[in-house]
């Protein structure tokens, strides 16, 4: 998929672990891991909203378009 999730970078900048983020956004660690490893097929706006809120960023900071 040409859309990549750049969650790792933002987590690193915020010095936050995936477990901690999972607790804050109320998403299971398994689902967040799927998102982080680019295995998700889609992302809900509610999930994106919660991630942006907790990581203090814009959707564009979490997603990147990588042309083939």
């Amino acid at each position: 998929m040409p859309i990549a999730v750049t969650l790792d970078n933002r987590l690193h900048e915020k010095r936050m672990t995936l477990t901690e983020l999972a607790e804050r956004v109320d998403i299971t660690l398994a689902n967040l891991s799927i998102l982080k490893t680019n295995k998700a097929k889609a992302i809900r706006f509610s999930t994106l909203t919660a991630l942006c809120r907790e990581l203090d960023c814009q959707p564009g900071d979490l997603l990147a378009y990588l042309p083939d």
Partner: protein
Amino acid sequence: MPQALRRDPLLAFAQFLVGALAGLFAFAGIMVAIGLGAVTTVQRDYVFAKLAAAGVSEAGYGAVLFALVLIIMLMALGAFFMRELFRLVGSVEEGDPFRPFNADRLRRMGWNTVASQLILFALAAIAHSFGGYRQALLAEDAMLVGFSALLVTLILFILARVFRVGAEMRSELEGTV
């Protein structure tokens, strides 16, 4: 949703009925196969005598054998159809019916009814070739059954597509975070 569907009395009854019908088709098929064995061996002369008494030529013996083979095939198809339906109902009871294998299952059931219908037409033609009012009625019945079966076949093929789309939507949903 899966919890609500669990132990549904309608599904439990359907599974019981479909299971019983599958057994009945299998039993009938075995019995006809035994009958076919008898007709070709120990009952051969008896059948020839019956055919002669009915005014049917000796060539009718071949038609009788062919009809018996067709009936065995029909019973086998019926048993397979019921087995597929049994498993389909089982997957609904488990609360997870929208899977690609259920779409394949419904498509197979559709082709099964097509094959069964072709066999029924062949049987009706054999009955018609023997002549007589009763046989003609049987042939007409087979034509009527043919129309219902055509509708059932269409419904099965459409349902197969519905399940295919459902399975794709399910897959999408599973990958949504």
